[in-house]
């Protein structure tokens, strides 16, 4: 990287991506609940209205269906809307506009109309948000053909992937692990919080760059097993692998759809063992798809059953947050299971 960098947390990186695109392209509009004057409840759009004007960054009614609906119409009309849904838990009123419309407009019109929009929304737990501020609904979107689903795990990727999402000519769900906004989180809530201030991945290039979709980020290299994770769980994986004393190939999936299955297969073929992590509930989570694909591609290399470590199949409880969250202990148990079998 030759471009000068600035230390940013994930909120700043996201804001910077928006700022870069808004500065470059007058077709980029940013809107959502409380994103305008106030700058968003997580501050991801702070200052954008002041800098780019009332018409480019504005508040919407509390109507996720309406927010996605206008985004579809604007995108079809040549703009590049970036809509924020305040919490992913509140995206469901917009689900029809996403799954039936944004994802289908290109197909049903055979390319006559398209919907190049981006929907940003925070996912995941770890802030005592309970059942309705903690969900990770990525699997509900990876099942919808026509959508792309992206989850960054760090400021560098967040900025590059978000710029890529805005420039992409297809609709993109951009899911932001809220627990990572201010720092990496290794899954232990009792340790003091770590910030991005000193982290390498917090060194974010100024200006424009992209991180391509359909690629993984190799987080660590090892021969013992492959760990597939994304979002917050990448950091938990790193911590748990260290504690468990294993050398893991940790792949940050980051682009769930389209998926870089080649990189994943190569790793599993090398290690022969695979652990899949996500915070979302287990049944029909994206881990199921990863497990099925790994087994399809690497069956004869697998030395042990693939293990999924996930949130439980319950709503995200409030007081039992850390009993629900797939923290280091659960991951270490999973690592042991993968390593001991076969």
């Amino acid at each position, binding site marked *: 990287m030759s471009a000068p960098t600035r230390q940013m947390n994930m909120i700043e990186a996201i804001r910077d991506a928006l700022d870069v695109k808004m500065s470059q392209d007058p077709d980029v509009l940013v809107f959502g609940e409380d994103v305008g004057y106030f700058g968003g409840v997580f501050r991801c759009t702070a200052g954008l209205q002041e800098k780019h004007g009332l018409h480019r960054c504005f508040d919407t009614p509390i*109507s996720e269906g309406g927010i996605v*609906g*206008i985004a579809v*119409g604007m995108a*079809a009309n*040549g703009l590049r809307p970036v809509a924020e849904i305040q919490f992913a838990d509140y995206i469901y009123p917009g689900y029809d506009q996403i799954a039936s419309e944004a994802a289908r407009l290109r*197909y049903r019109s*055979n390319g006559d109309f398209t919907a190049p929009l981006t929907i940003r929304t925070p996912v995941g737990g770890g802030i005592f948000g309970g059942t309705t501020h903690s969900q990770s609904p990525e699997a509900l979107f990876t099942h919808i053909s026509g959508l792309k689903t992206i989850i960054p795990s760090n400021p560098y990727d967040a900025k590059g992937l978000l710029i890529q999402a805005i420039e992409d000519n297809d609709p993109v769900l951009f899911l932001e692990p809220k627990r990572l906004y201010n720092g990496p989180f290794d899954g232990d809530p009792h340790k003091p919080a770590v910030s991005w201030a000193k982290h390498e991945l917090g060194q974010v290039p100024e200006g424009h760059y992209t991180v391509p979709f359909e690629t993984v980020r190799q987080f660590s290299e090892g021969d013992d097993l492959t760990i597939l994770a994304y979002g917050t769980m990448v950091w938990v994986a790193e911590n748990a692998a260290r504690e468990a004393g294993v050398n893991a190939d940790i792949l940050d999936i980051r682009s769930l759809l389209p998926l870089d299955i080649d990189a994943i297969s190569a790793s599993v073929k090398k290690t022969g063992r695979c652990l899949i992590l996500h915070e979302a509930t287990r049944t029909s989570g994206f881990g199921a798809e990863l497990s099925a694909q790994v087994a399809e591609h690497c069956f004869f290399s697998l030395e042990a059953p693939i293990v999924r470590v996930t949130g439980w199949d319950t709503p995200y409880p409030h007081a039992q947050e850390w009993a629900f969250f797939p923290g280091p202990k659960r991951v270490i148990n999973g690592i042991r299971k993968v390593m001991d079998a076969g």
Partner: protein
Amino acid sequence: MSKTSNQSRLHIPEPPFRPGDTPDYSYISVPTAHTPPRPDPLCDDYDTMEHALGLIRVLRFNGEAVGDWNPQMPLDLMHKGLKDMMMTRAMDDRMFNMQRQGKMSFYMKSRGEEAVSVGHAMALKNSDMVFPTYRQQGILINRGASIKEMMCQCLSNSGDPLDGKSIPVLYSFKKHGFFSISGNLGTQLIQGVGWAMANAYKNLDDIASVFTGEGATAEGDFHYALNFASTYRAPCIINVVNNQWAISSFQGIAAGEGETFAARGTGFGLATLRVDGNDLLAVYAATKWAAERARKGGGATLIEHFTYRSSGHSTSDDPTKYRPESEPDIWPFGDPIERLKMHLIAIGEWDEDQHAALEESCKKEIRDIYKSAEALGSLSGDTKVDHYTMFEQVYEELPRHLRDQRDLFDEEL
């Protein structure tokens, strides 16, 4: 039916007539002249309160065009409007019959509602994007879309611009300002508002015009559309085509029994008009008014087009199962083609022979176009659609997993 069994306090609305009943619509008041008056298009929204409850009409049944709302339409335009409506009907009839012969999977007619689509389109600019339902084919015909392409779409054949991807009548014609029709009711409403917001943002003069059936106003998207249109003063028209029926459900299921659909807009500070949808001049006039209001920054207008769905919901539907067979004929607002014809005759610019000749020539034109369309394939023979196209336009480019699946598909053949 034992309506009294299990009586409870729960009120369930019912239509006035069911099969076996003799429909009598004399309780519907048909204003004989125009009512209410035409305010300035930039008036306060309150000034259209009565318009939400009344009914804007221009054409009397005796053929006279009267009142404030009379658009004084030039003669050539009226003739074009008449022909467009007749072409629409001729095409509908032909396609319906061809569906019955197995040439296509499905078809939907707009019989009785031709004035809504044609009259509306006549009052817009072609660059105004329309967000239609499946019952506004008249807009495409008015705007000069290729009828052959439309037919090929229905036939899902090699001439289908959509490559067979969509079911019949779900057209998409960007070049004619006609948004891709969704099979999911209502979704286009808020999208159209978003399109209009984008126009305003880009400082364009164009507006959007969105349509829904009265039944689909119950979807959340209708609410979103009214709300966002109001908040951002989006330059658009929101049209509710109240054709009395939503498949088998009468309009009272969507409306509750008390109110008009136009009145749904009053609580949002939108202008609201209710118009005789079988009166092409009234539809045209109301649309002109709303388009001017939107273009000049006055914001959105909600127009209820009061009309009647004379045919079944679609080729899958038999309306005599749930409404009296004679109801379409008894409907007090007449037929939109008849009404305009009467007017042209009344002013001495048309006669029965000319009309019969035009009807014949429309039929023939449609028959000829249809033949050339069917030559490109149909469901009863070979649709001649390339199967591989089914993998295209899911995304701009084929991602890895779809390339793999295309290869798997190869193995199957």
